[in-house]
């Protein structure tokens, strides 16, 4: 097969590409330029898509003996991931940009282009497994539970999975580093990347403030009493405890958390931890890589990349809407987060949370 290997400049995607080469495929490496004005050097472990990362990816491709190109997808990334990220926060929601990037940039813009140019598949360094089955490919959690990235791939459709290759799905991270060493890849010891790749210093609130400006509003408790003020709802996310700047302590002396955000009145509502416990989630933009459920289905629901999955019943309400009833409460679910649904280790589908309820 002709395989396009996405190479970020990190160790995972380099080893993934190497494994595809070993499997006998005709491989071409590509590095995505996701910023029109990339920084020259990485700052610590943060950020990606710097000139240094492009260089590292190119060197890895050299070692593997495969052709390598840099493709400019910065405009798509800006529109579909960065601007979406800002708009979501502006609307009082908490987006997951990695998921959006997989959905719209890597497995749409890049994959579509690869297929149009004659490639059969796209390989990435994601930790997740694809198992072939008579009814189509099945997406499963990775063998390494600490690295499992099936959550951020929960948005993929079965058509996209049919063109995807995740050569690291069975691997453990430490083995991947050792393998990189053995293969003579200089990125073997490169630190993992964390946080939002386009916010180099990790200061999401400061970054959003630059784009959205000061938008002050009230902080109120559940009874509507004014307990403080804030510079912009985008600085807050449901479940947040730190940085609330509340002058007056709560009547019971317990810590308070962000319970909800009301973007129109710019109100941040705070309250006790137990008020964060949610039993029902409603979502839209449902995607079913395992096929549309025929009725209420028992699943495991996961609401964050590294949250524990919770038993639940999911009901498809039609038009991409779902209702997820959790068997046990989950603390702090924000609108905008994805809920990914599993059957054991298998990903069934996902939806974007729009609303939550405690009962």
């Amino acid at each position, binding site marked *: 097969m002709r395989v396009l290997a996405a190479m970020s400049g990190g160790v995972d995607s380099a080893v993934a590409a190497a494994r595809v080469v070993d499997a006998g495929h005709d491989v*071409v490496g590509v*590095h995505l*330029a996701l*910023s*029109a*004005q*990339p*920084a*020259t050097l990485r700052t610590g472990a943060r950020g990606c898509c*710097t*000139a240094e990362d*492009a*260089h590292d990816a190119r060197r890895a491709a050299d070692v593997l003996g495969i*052709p390598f*190109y*840099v*493709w*400019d*997808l*910065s*405009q*798509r990334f800006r*529109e579909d991931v960065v601007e979406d990220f800002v708009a979501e926060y502006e609307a009082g929601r908490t987006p997951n940009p990695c998921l959006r990037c997989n959905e*719209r940039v890597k497995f*749409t*813009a890049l994959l*579509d*282009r690869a297929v*149009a*140019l*004659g490639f059969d598949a796209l390989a990435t360094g994601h930790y997740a497994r694809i198992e072939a089955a008579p009814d189509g490919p099945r997406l499963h959690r990775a063998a390494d539970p600490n690295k499992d990235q099936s959550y951020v791939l929960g948005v993929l459709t079965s058509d996209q999975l049919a063109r995807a290759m995740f050569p690291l799905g069975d691997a453990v991270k430490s083995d991947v580093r050792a393998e990189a060493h053995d293969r003579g890849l200089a990125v073997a010891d490169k630190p993992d990347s964390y946080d939002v790749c386009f916010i180099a210093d990790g200061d999401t609130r400061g970054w959003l403030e630059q784009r959205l400006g000061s938008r002050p509003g009230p902080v109120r408790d559940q009874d509507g009493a004014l307990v403080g003020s804030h510079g912009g709802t985008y600085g807050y996310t449901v479940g947040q405890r730190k940085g609330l700047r509340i002058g007056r302590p709560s009547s019971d002396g317990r810590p308070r958390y962000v319970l909800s955000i009301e973007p129109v009145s710019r109100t941040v509502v705070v309250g006790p931890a137990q008020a964060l416990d949610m039993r029902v989630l409603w979502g839209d933009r449902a995607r079913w890589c395992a096929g549309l459920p025929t009725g209420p289905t028992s699943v495991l629901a996961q609401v964050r990349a590294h949250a524990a999955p919770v038993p639940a019943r999911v009901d498809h309400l039609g038009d991409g809407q779902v209702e997820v009833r959790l068997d046990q409460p989950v603390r702090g679910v924000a609108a905008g987060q994805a809920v990914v649904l599993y059957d054991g280790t298998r990903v069934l589908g996902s939806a974007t949370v729009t609303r939550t309820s405690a009962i």
Partner: protein
Amino acid sequence: MTSHPQAVYLDHAATTPMLPAAIAAMSAELGVVGNASSLHTSGRRARRVVEESRELIAAAVGARPSEVVLTAGGTESDNLAVKGTFAARLEADDRRRRILVSAVEHHAVLDSVQWLAEHAGAQAVWLPVDRWGRVDLDALRAEIEADPASVAMVSVMWANNEVGTIQPVAQIAALAHEHGIPVHTDAVQAVGHVPVDFAACGVDLLTFTGHKLGGPLGVGALVAVRGAALTPLLHGGGQERQVRSGTLDGPAVRGFAVATDVAVADLDTEAQRVTRLRDALVEGVRAQVPDVVLHGDPTPGGRLPGNANLGFTGCEGDSLLYLLDAQGVECSTGSACQAGVPQPSHVLLAMGVPDPELRGSLRLSLGHSTTRADVDAALAVLPAAVARARGAGVASRVG
């Protein structure tokens, strides 16, 4: 001579294979010890090689040997010309802060001017170009006459590296000299490809380099009239007229000189031959892809013989580059790389090329090793590559 056995190398404007005579001359020197600045027999021998080379270079471009400052290549020559002239002119008269420079210069000039503007009090004046990329002489005249005493220098390239358009350098020099303003021209793409006579064209400073005309990489020259005010950039032994320091690379200088001599001697027949091949390539593409656009001056003699900059609306140059490379046809996109990221070409932007054409531009550049078979091989794969790349679309517009 080519990058791999089946490769059709159509990227001579990036670098062109060394001429056999230059390889032989350079190889002969590589095994011989000698620093051209040493006073003993080995040093004298090395110096003789360098000076004979300098004479050969000077003769080939219509300059005196003493006017040839040897450098490490085009980028260094451009930096020395722009920064060295600005510093010297400003020191003599601190009103001289404006640098008049075409908007389509190579980054070696562009970024030097930008640096001076940001760090040394220069004022950059970008001269507009027409749709073919030729500098607007009226705009140049107007800028000079607005305040001649404030102009430090003028820099306009001889021929453009992306679209091949040849600039009216002699007219530019004449205009500037009416007010005693020095003129630099980056002739990296021109020497050995179109007639270049330093004395006749009237410029004060002229950049060219070895590897664009069949010589080795890493060696070039700044031809500077006697008395040109130049502040050095590289300080040290003062080897080159006290303007440029650094031990001269004798073997490379020898290879550079022989290549320049051969390229200029063969220029008439070679330019005709390459022009015919280039025209066959462009016509061949046009026959199969009728909506192709040729960027740059289309008139005979208006552009470099080997240059074909083609615009294909509705696809990404990156996609084309990949598809052609996969089939052994090597060329470049019409964009420059900054920090590893392809950027829209400042040259095409300055020419007013619309965005869809900008993204899908490809530079095919022919040279001394190009044959009819190369052109045919490119024509055999290019139309299908364009069709496929158009199917893949423009990344920013899909969805």
